[in-house]
């Protein structure tokens, strides 16, 4: 197999490639934050009676909350802020398909590139 000689990249090309990667990083990490998609969905199950008993806190728990500087009123939004786990099957299936598709592409494309590497490396010997 003939040895592959890569083209030399110009300085401008290198700067452009760096810019592409930086922009991609910021879009991937920053966009979900900007669009408000990041963070788990929690909501407060409000109670009318704001007492330690109503909040499900025994005397030991209540004493610790008070030691931490909380009253039943100020602790209410912490204690009653709960996750509501609902499995959204279409989203789950999309997520699974995206993940599986990504890994399948990675391994198949990598294997094609790897064969070139191995052929060049070991055919030289």
């Amino acid at each position, binding site marked *: 197999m003939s*040895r*592959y*000689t*890569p083209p030399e*990249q110009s300085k401008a090309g*290198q*700067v452009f*490639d*760096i810019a*592409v*990667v930086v922009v*991609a*990083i910021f*879009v*991937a*990490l*920053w966009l*979900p*934050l900007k669009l408000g*998609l*990041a*963070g*788990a969905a929690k909501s407060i199950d409000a109670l009318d009676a704001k007492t330690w008993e109503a909040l*499900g*806190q025994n005397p*030991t728990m209540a004493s*610790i*909350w008070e*030691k*931490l500087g909380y009253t039943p009123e100020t602790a209410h939004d*912490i*204690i009653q802020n*709960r*996750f509501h*786990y609902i*499995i959204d099957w279409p*989203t789950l299936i999309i*997520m699974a398909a*995206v*993940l599986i*598709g*990504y*890994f399948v*592409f*990675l*391994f198949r*494309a*990598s*294997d*094609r*590139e*790897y*064969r*070139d*590497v*191995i052929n*060049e*490396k*070991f055919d*030289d010997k």
Partner: protein
Amino acid sequence: MTVALENNITTTIHGDRVSLLRVLGPAHVWALGVGIVLVGEFTGWNFSADKGGALAALIVCWVVGLLYTSVAMIDSEVTSTVAAAGGQYAQAKHIVGPLMAFNVALFLVFAYTMLEVSDAILLGDTIVAKAGVEGLTHNSFIAATIVVLAWLNYRGVLMTLNVNFVITAIAYVSIVVLFFSVSPWTQGAVLKLNELVTPGNALPYGWIGVIAAFQFGIWYYLGIEGTTQAAEEVRSPARSLPYGTMAGMITLLIAAAMTWYVCASLMPWEYLGITYYPLWDAGKLTGSPLLENLLFIATLLAALASANGCINDAARAWFSLGRDRYLPSWFSAVHPKYRTPYRSILFLLPIALAFAFIADLNQAITFSILSGVLQYTFMSINIMMFRKKWPLGSIRRGYTHPFHPLPAIVLFCLCVVTFFAIFLGFGSQLIAMVAFYFLISLWFHFYRYKFVRRGDQFTMPWPKPQGY
């Protein structure tokens, strides 16, 4: 100037070839791994209590501990054989292929940079909380942390990891001191586990909460695999890397168990699940000013050690990408005097600073976890391919992990569970990140790869892999 061991791990400065220095021992490997991870005991793990309750946090502590034990076993075998900077990146390059290696390096850079961001936010918030001064914000503390640690990394790896060893050891000792100060063998005096974790509140969301808790359970140990980044800078990779990594994992399992026991015995799960400073709060709740101040200082030191190690690891992964021309080769320069990948360190600095100011703590943690779990999924498949392409006896391995393929299967299954856990809270972030990796992979495969020399990427003195 020192001549490099392999022809592609050097850079040429004024006609001389310089490489990374081989100056580290097993203690530095331990300090790098545990230093990165230990901050997870000081913040982050406790968000798993928020997702599933106090008992769920304990269950995931042990089950995720199993995941990481598998990671450490697998990593020790592959890294003791593929000893090159970039760690899992170098493994992927030799075992799976260039595109996978490119992705793995990005997983590493994202996981460590976002972990560094989380550390800096924690440090800034902790100082602000301690100061209690109206109007004081964490911004200046975050900026100072990231810039000073980047400078430390710029100046040299030996000094960086010596500093890490000392501050990690102090932070670790503080957990042990806290544990023995609260009479762990006696319930009722200081610790009140029976009254705080009851049959009625142990699993407030049931078993779905336990699965959801996996997401932040990862934070107990995330980063231990970073020990492999030092592969080109340790004096004896075959001995130091497995020894340092496995010792680090044992250290962390003990610290995680002690941390859960003390914290769950001192505060209600609803508070434990939202506090940014579980161990510092535990120190406060003992009523001892000495313990409170010790845990405050230890929280800062753990955050510093972690951020320090993360800068070290992220820069080496980025450096490796430049060296192989997966990214512009400008990044592959080694500093002529300090022998560090200084351009990579400087390039990642503003990225870390930017995200420290736009993301909050649990978002930054989630970004880091996402990249970490993608990487562990790769590792479980990578070890199967490694054993298939080079069966035992075909090449010299520094360490051979037992029970193969059980650790790989366990690791893969736990990764699937963790993806589901992330879906339960942060599914859109996961899809956004995978979409990013997919698009950047297309860019690499169809455009960037043309600049890469083919055969030069394979640098290990191994026979041709079976099946090729």
